């Protein structure tokens, strides 16, 4: 993926560049809002990573103007401000995701990759399929190798999210935010337990596991 990072703090920018670069993405860095906006418009980027607080034009303004000018690259806000109202402001400005500083590198990579996928799959699908696992979004049914799997509504949504991001690492925080709509981290390992329940339903009776644990990062559904 080709990613533009707009961040005024040089060491933070270098960190993002290194983390995304290590994950195999091409990264351009801009140090202020004006030049960031110019470059984002000029280049064909798959995703934007925008610091919310920038000298001159701040991140919210930058993205608003970018969207008004027809820019469509999905954007992730980075910010030290993490309350729900801040997130809402970010989304209203045209952001697609919001990551609060400080963050783990794996979290950043997972979210940026999730953004790139979102753009590729703009057309709403009615069926999802990953290595023999089939989900019918209209009938709300799941089959693996033709065998019906019964899921609770929440398990269904959890699996749907994993399937939409098949092949990518999905973090616990992402699951809490996107599947449960909670913006806090419970101390109890609630997500792990839900994942292991889901795993017992989709993987237990099959030879090849689909739902993998990525140590120190999260989970990945992959054929």
């Amino acid at each position, binding site marked *: 993926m080709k990613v533009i990072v707009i961040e005024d703090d040089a060491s933070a920018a270098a960190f993002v560049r290194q983390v995304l670069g290590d994950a195999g993405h091409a990264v351009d860095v801009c140090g202020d809002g004006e030049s960031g906006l110019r470059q984002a418009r000029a280049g064909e980027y798959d995703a934007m990573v925008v610091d919310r607080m920038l000298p001159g034009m701040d991140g919210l303004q930058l993205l608003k103007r970018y969207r008004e000018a027809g820019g469509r690259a999905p954007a992730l806000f980075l910010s030290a401000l993490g*309350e*729900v*109202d801040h997130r809402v402001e970010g989304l209203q400005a045209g952001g697609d995701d919001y990551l609060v500083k400080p963050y783990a590198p794996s979290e950043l990579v997972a979210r940026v990759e999730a953004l790139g996928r979102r753009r590729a799959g703009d057309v709403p699908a009615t069926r999802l399929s990953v290595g023999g696992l089939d989900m019918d979004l209209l009938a709300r049914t799941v089959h693996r190798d033709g065998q019906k799997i019964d899921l609770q509504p929440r398990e269904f949504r959890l699996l749907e999210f994993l399937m939409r991001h098949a092949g990518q690492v999905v973090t616990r925080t992402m699951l809490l935010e996107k599947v*449960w709509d*909670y913006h*806090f981290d419970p101390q*109890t*390992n*609630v997500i792990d*337990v839900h994942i292991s329940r889901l795993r017992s339903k989709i993987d237990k009776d099959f030879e090849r596991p689909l739902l993998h644990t990525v140590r120190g990062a999260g989970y990945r559904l992959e054929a």
Partner: protein
Amino acid sequence: MKIGRLPALVRTTTFRLALLHASIFILFSASLLAYLYYETAGHLGRQAQAELNAEFQELSAAYRGGFDRLNQAVSERSGARGKFFYLLEDGAGQKVAGDFDFLPAAAPEGQVVDVAFDYDVRDARGNPLRRSAAGRISRLSGGGVLMVAYDVGQLGEINRQITEVVWRSALVGFVLSLIGGVVISRSAAQRAEELARTAEEVMAGDLTRRAPVRGSGDEFDRLSEQINAMLIKLERLVIASRSAGDSIAHDLRSPLTRLRNRLEAGLRASGPETSRAALEETIADVDGVLEMFNTVLRLSRVQAGATGSFRRTNVAGITDELAELYEPACEEKHLTFTYAPEAELYVQADRGLIAQALSNLLDNAVKYTPEGGGVRLSLRRLPGGEVELSVCDTGPGIAPEDRERAVERFVRLEESRSEPGSGLGLSLASAVAEAHRGRLVLDSADGPGPHGGLAARLILPAA
């Protein structure tokens, strides 16, 4: 005229209220006195006119019997020394009858004219005395002039006295009402002054100062009560943030020291494997410190009421979701999880905040309840109409004397020091309850343990 240029006295509420008070009083008394004047002095004048008319009519009737009849009537009346005095002249302008000696004005041509004039009389000691009179002069159809007049001295005196009384009362009234206004508004201004002084002293740093409440239940008492409630909250926040600062310094010292030692050890480590392990542990430590910072920030924002969008929310929906979220985790830890759902209970609430508060309570329950125990999430409407969301466990519970302290920031009771955690979970739950105008109550769950397990109840006002 600019307000800023007025002298200080004029700017005071006291002065303005007093002036307003006096003006209203004057307006009121002026109309009252005007009415009084009209009904007394005015009435006397009108009455004299009416009597004069009657007198003239009678004399006209006499004149229809001839000049001599009139002459006779005038003579009789002058002799009677009544209220009126008379003058009858013949066609040649010679006095024929009456007790007055001259015409005070020229006789009109064939008409009647009303006159007012002064004339001199001598009093008992022979001193001249100027008196006022009013009367009517009429030219007779057959030649000659008739005048009838009356002394207005009496009437004028009454008139003057009434006018004087009116003016004096107006003056006294003005002064009295000014004084009254000052007295009344002084008390209001004084109370405003007291409030201003309280605010000044609080700003100067004395957070324990309170505005005086007189117990009269008036607007000023209400204002004072509100200000005091505000000050109590302010004082609590200031103390909380002071102690939070101390606690942060204290609580950060240990992880930071640990961190430093670990970095030191990593630096001296022999192989890359050990230094890598040291780095990983260091990151975990730093994450813990950052998490604590975030929680403190969040707690401050919730306490300051700076976050959350409050709308009418069915809290049963929130507990349903949390039950579903926590039930598997409890099962995995071999805890019996029970949840008694309710159809609908509405509260003016922020979904995210309530969920986080309950999540903190559930985290505690899961953390402290030993295997084989139970965790119960329940909600109900209290008899008073409030809504109660509670998390009960069969863990060790909290001793009654520690319950209040357990809610304070960073307080970690001795029993829980060994467990991971920031000591902010209950503080945040309590802050969330207060942000919803509710409260967090810690209680015994009446279980078998030493303190009967913990029952943590979020009590929120119903919407």
